[in-house]
């Protein structure tokens, strides 16, 4: 060893030359190492997603007898869902209300996302934070706020009455599917906006310049370049909002009124008052299937549309 190392060589010789068997195994197998690190998350996911789902499906073929379950497999729950009009009607209403709310939200959010992506040049992050902030506020309280706004003596009614536009409060504002739609749209706006923004932000600006160079007017450019390129974000937004809202039951309970009930309400009472868990499980299974079907149809439609557009 050279002179530069004098005096410290002894310290260095302490370097151990062997590793534990396990760590040697880990070292040789990167994949093993990867799965080891993924293990806690996977275990939780399997225990808390896969296992519950399987059991839920199994339970949907059971029957509730008093406080106990009759575990002989039966299709009775599904038969009841198929035969009684309430299930399909509420399911369709949920899909419809969520669908409309999603559509409205995406339409409302797109221009805003566009604005932030293309017209905000400084403090972009600040804008995004401010837009997403409401999403982190209490779910119940946001719904409650809408009750106050749409209510009989709410902001809108008292506003309209004070300026003399109406004599009596409008009673269709609240307790209607419309109120549910509006509340859902507000609740999920931030969640729908983000993916659209991200896909807009990703668009290479030179592509737009090229289109302009090739003679496209701004409007044509929007429809030929910007919109198609941002479609993945729009699709993501649709999924992120549509699917969770189908199962919502708090919003309909609070602002939906008798005609605003959704499938989530029906599902919830099976686990509460009605105390028919297998029936609840069957409703949940049907709900997941319905969502999957609608989701796949939507995907197929967008794919078709894209093929047709190109």
């Amino acid at each position, binding site marked *: 060893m050279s002179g530069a190392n004098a005096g410290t060589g002894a310290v260095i010789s302490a370097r151990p030359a062997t590793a534990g068997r396990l760590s040697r195994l880990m070292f040789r197998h990167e994949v093993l190492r990867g799965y080891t690190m993924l293990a806690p*998350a996977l275990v939780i996911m399997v225990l808390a997603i896969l296992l519950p789902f399987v059991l839920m499906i199994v339970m949907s073929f059971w029957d509730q007898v008093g406080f106990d379950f009759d575990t002989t497999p039966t299709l009775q729950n599904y038969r009841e869902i198929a035969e009684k009009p309430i299930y399909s009607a509420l399911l369709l209403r949920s899909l419809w209300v969520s669908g409309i709310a999603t559509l409205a939200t995406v339409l409302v959010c797109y221009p805003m996302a566009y604005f932030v992506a293309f017209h905000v040049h400084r403090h972009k992050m600040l804008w995004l*934070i401010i*837009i997403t902030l409401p999403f982190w506020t209490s779910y119940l309280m946001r719904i409650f706020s809408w009750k106050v706004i749409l209510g009989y003596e709410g902001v809108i009614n008292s506003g309209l009455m*004070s300026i003399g536009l109406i004599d009596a409060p409008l009673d269709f504002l609240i307790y209607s599917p419309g109120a549910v739609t509006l509340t859902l749209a507000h609740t999920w706006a931030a969640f729908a906006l983000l993916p659209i923004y991200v896909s807009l932000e990703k668009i290479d600006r030179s592509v737009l310049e090229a289109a302009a160079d090739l003679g496209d007017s701004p409007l044509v450019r929007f429809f030929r370049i910007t919109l198609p390129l941002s479609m993945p974000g729009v699709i993501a937004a649709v999924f992120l909002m549509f699917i969770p809202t*189908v199962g919502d039951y708090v919003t309909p309970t609070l602002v939906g009124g008798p005609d605003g009930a959704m499938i989530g309400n029906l599902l*919830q009472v099976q686990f509460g008052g009605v105390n028919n868990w297998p029936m609840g499980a069957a409703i949940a299974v049907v709900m997941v299937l319905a969502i999957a079907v609608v989701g796949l149809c939507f995907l197929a439609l967008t794919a078709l549309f894209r093929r047709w557009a190109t």
Partner: protein
Amino acid sequence: MSGRSHSHRPNRGLQAYAALFMVFLYGPILIIPLFSFVDALYVRFPIEALTFRWYGELWRREPVIDALGNSLYVAAIVSVVSTAIGVFAAKAIARNRVPGTGAIVTFMMLPLVVPGIIFAVAILIVLNRMGVALSLYTVMAGHLVVCLPFAIWSLLPRFEGFDPSMEEASGDLGENGWWTFWRVTFPIMAPGIAASLLMTFTVSFDEFIMAFFLSGTQQTLPIFVWGQLRFPSQFPSILALSTLILAASFATVFLSLWIGRIGLPKAATGEIPK
């Protein structure tokens, strides 16, 4: 309308739209703080008198404080556990060439796109079958499922932007995985971890549906609030509490996003400045 040459030209129409959008977004949110100062048991217009007394009263309500304590307890544990698990998962996904990563990530993101009620019900069934009594711990389990995607969501991009040679350099310099994590990965990832902690904390703190189905004796705050909606005399203090929480949530999320952003360009990526 778009394109660099045009984009600097302000678009009045869009600006007006953005302003309207913000009103739509924030108008309803501001109702809560507003009514927390209104001196009436029932929320109605026009507002007659203002008061601070609901805030004072809030402090006297032990169950409220207990529910708040439960929520904070659950959120604290859930945020730490989900972030810890998220760190390892995100690292494995970003770093190790593990087959099936795509499927695993999709699987983990599932709670984001499956109605919460389905998960809640499914987990409830499992707990019931296994004979597990409902408690704050079962709520935590439910929240963990909801929070993990958020943790991974906020950590994954940071791991992807985090130069793997930093960790290799540490290994090369004689540190094993454990020490490398604490001496290199953790400090460099600290902003991302903080962001994940705050985000998962907020998600858990506000979560309703899982808690609704999975809570036992001790209620979390949203469940408590849900129960109190029917008691007019309690309601204004719930508004006061919500206002405080709103303020705290805003501060927390703002902080988390801000922390998440700082240091991202240079510290976390270790890129050589050009």
